[in-house]
């Protein structure tokens, strides 16, 4: 599942991370990606986004995308698990989003 995501053009890696502990459950990352660091911070970010959405009364957070200078961090979650993908600017975010939603279904 993760290997399939990471094969997408411009995707540097993907991980399944525990939302509450920020630890990696499984990962497929290119060399040089600081997996544990990204995992801890992305899980924290996703959890706060989910809580913000909840507090704002806009329902469940479905897809989180953080745009940065040299790429994107995308995250979706379910059942205390967060699927995180790191992508370069050239990545097709629409396609990545669909693939992540599919992968999330597989997570159960």
């Amino acid at each position, binding site marked *: 599942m993760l290997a399939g995501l990471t094969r997408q053009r411009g995707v540097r890696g993907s991980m399944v991370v525990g939302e509450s*502990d920020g630890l990696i459950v499984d990962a497929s990352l290119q060399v040089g990606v600081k997996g544990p660091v990204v*995992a*801890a911070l992305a*899980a924290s970010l996703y*959890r706060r986004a989910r809580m913000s959405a909840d507090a704002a009364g806009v329902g469940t957070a479905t897809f989180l995308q953080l745009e940065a200078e040299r790429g994107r961090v995308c995250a979706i979650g379910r059942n205390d698990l967060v699927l995180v993908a790191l992508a370069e600017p050239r990545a097709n975010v629409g396609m990545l989003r669909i693939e992540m939603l599919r992968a999330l279904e597989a997570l159960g």
Partner: protein
Amino acid sequence: MTVAVAEEWVERPLRDFVGEARVLLALLLHPSGQVLAQHGFTRAVDVMSACALAAAIQASSGELGKQLDGRPFGALHHAGRERQIFLAPVRTARNEYILLAVFDQQSSLGIVQLYFEEFRAALATAAPTASVERPPALAPDFEGELNRNLAALFGRK
């Protein structure tokens, strides 16, 4: 945020760690149980208890690690229903210390581990370079030192 220290060089690293990792309580102590710095405690007696327990846990798990794995275990994490503890050794050129951090759902183990690595590096950099002989497990003036450090932390004469 209040960080009370018995030795000034530990203040900045501990302050940064507490702020970044969002821990509720933090203690930096000598393996003998003497406190060097604390955040979040309001009573000296709690610091004394926590230091004694943390030093005992670290000593026990260290010895268990030696027996099972040939070397002391590293960090220890224990998750409660609402609060969790993280206990880990920190080595500097000067000495070895123990960090005890208590956190809740505002933080996570991953975040604490991440900023602990930064804390460890910052403390090693900040530590005075003059090497000193490792003190005995229980220094001759242990109680006096302990009381002096507690007084420094809680502003008692």
